[in-house]
């Protein structure tokens, strides 16, 4: 199915491209916009981006597949990233991750069976002084303990309805 860009995406792209000295530079910001709207970046969307920037689709795809944040498959309704790196690990980051996984019966890097969350490891989130930390979508949560994680998970369970996820796709690039 061909990609139908939304009106906001069209307007954003039209305004964005001329701000850069070269068109191609706009690619990452457009991909961010699409992923925010759609949850992921389909091959059809990539073709559309390529056409806007006078690129070949492969030149878009090589960007999508290089950067860990971009994804070609949908994820859970909440995207949880737990920092795995040293300062967090020294302060219990792995336990925090285990707790998120257990609460949703999820596997690392996969969407939970209820479709509510996808839990991944992230590398240092630049908040090591308040380790351990995690991000849920755009928001950073600091000084996490298992109890705090439980609270966050209870809130997600209350706010986000469960549903069967699309066939589980591995969200990892590497």
């Amino acid at each position, binding site marked *: 199915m061909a990609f139908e860009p939304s009106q906001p995406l069209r307007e954003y792209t039209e305004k964005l491209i001329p*701000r*850069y*000295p*070269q*068109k*191609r*530079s*706009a*690619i*990452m*910001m457009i*991909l*961010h916009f699409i992923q925010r709207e759609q949850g992921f970046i389909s091959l059809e969307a990539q073709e559309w981006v390529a056409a806007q*920037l006078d690129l070949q689709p492969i*030149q878009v795809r*090589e*960007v999508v597949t*290089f*950067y*860990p*944040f*971009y994804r070609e498959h949908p994820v859970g309704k909440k995207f949880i*990233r737990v920092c*795995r*790196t*040293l*300062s967090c*690990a*020294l*302060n*219990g980051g*792995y*336990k925090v991750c285990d707790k998120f996984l257990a609460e949703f019966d999820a596997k690392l890097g996969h969407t939970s069976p209820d479709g509510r969350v996808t839990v991944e490891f*992230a*590398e*240092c*989130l*630049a*908040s*090591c*002084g*308040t*380790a351990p930390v995690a*991000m849920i979508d*755009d*928001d*950073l*949560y*600091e000084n996490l303990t298992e109890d705090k994680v439980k609270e966050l998970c209870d809130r997600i369970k209350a706010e986000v309805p469960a549903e069967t996820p699309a066939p589980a796709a591995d969200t990892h690039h*590497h």
Partner: protein
Amino acid sequence: MIVAPKRTEIHPKERRMILKHADDPNYDTSIDCYMRHGGYEVLKKALAMKPEEVQDHVMKAGIRGRGGAGFPAGMKWKFLDRKSGKPIYLICNADESEPGTFKDRQIMHKDPHQLVEGMMIAAWATNTAKAFIYIREEMPHGALILEQAIEEARAKGFVGDNIGGSGYSCDLIVHRGAAAYICGEETGLIESLEGKRAYPRIKPPYFPAALGLYMCPTIVNNVETLCHVKHAVDMGGDEYAKLGTPNNSGTRIWSLSGHVQRPGYYELENGKHTYGELIYDIGGGLKPGRSLLAVIPGGSSSKVWRAGDRFKGKNRDGSEYDWGIEDVPLNFDGPAAAGSMSGSGAVIVVDDSVDIVDVLANINAFYAHESCGQCTPCREGSLWMKKITSRMAAGQARVEDVDLLASIGDQIAGRTICAHGEACAWPTQSFVAKFRDKFIERAQRQAASGTGETRLI
């Protein structure tokens, strides 16, 4: 939503210049608040000077880069290839992703206009045609705060067309990364900003000052560095240079994390304090009942110090030094004289509650994940070191691993396109050199921490 909580308790040893207002509960990110605190006055002052004069202040101030290498900013600007006649670009490196580092986050989330003002001064001084802030994806709120600040500054005529009525115009664009550490390396960043994979470029010939963004002369400076520009111009280069210690002027924000009682960001006058003061006095020391195992002095790629290390050598004036870790001056030159580097100013403290092999395994997992894959020694070497240390951590350590790790590390550094080669090799090289006995002990115990995973606690 917690963006960056204010830390209202400021340690009496701190000398806050960059973070002067950041943690004031009554200070916010609006331009009105910034201007009530004297904001954009220094830009006006700079616009009244010739660009060369502004550059002179930065040169005399002796501002050294806060992003990792400590290279003098004034010198970097002088290298710009002006003869080419091509447009000049300025990029603020806001990728902040060296493990342990969290200082730029404070500036961008709490005092965004300071960065905007610093950048516009730098832009004027270098006749920049267009300026960019490349901010890591994991700071989405930071990107919005900066965009908002730029729009406010544009409305007041400090960004965009005819800045401050000077006739000089320069746009400032916030550009977001997508969770790849290698975008912090300046040429990788440039490729990324051009809309490609962040494959670093080889130097020579691709020094940004000559062949940077779109093959035009380009300056890449760290967030904190660009903020210092504002203060150097405000105080005057000579006055600024009196702050700190010779060759290590100004203040610096240290990110302290790991096993300390009071982790956090601390802005200190450069070289006026020691690692001991930061860790024990300011940072509250170790947790009760623990003893020190190691200190990573400048981001996870810097060479590790083992508790009890002594560093001896000769100062420039011929006098001798004999330091323990606690005595090393907190500045650019101190850690270098002690066989490591101050890097991004990220100090990670490790106590005896963990095994040193597990610490290296954690670090190696990071650098293996972040190699861009262009150079065989870095791509294969970082992965190989990670596999070995993961296996060791999972309970299958072998005595011969120590020498194998050392030999892999030795074959990466100096043989790659970018300094990620060093960044991934230095931890392994220094850990096995300093903790050889512990690595062998681990192997001999066959101490299965047993989970088959890399984890510390």
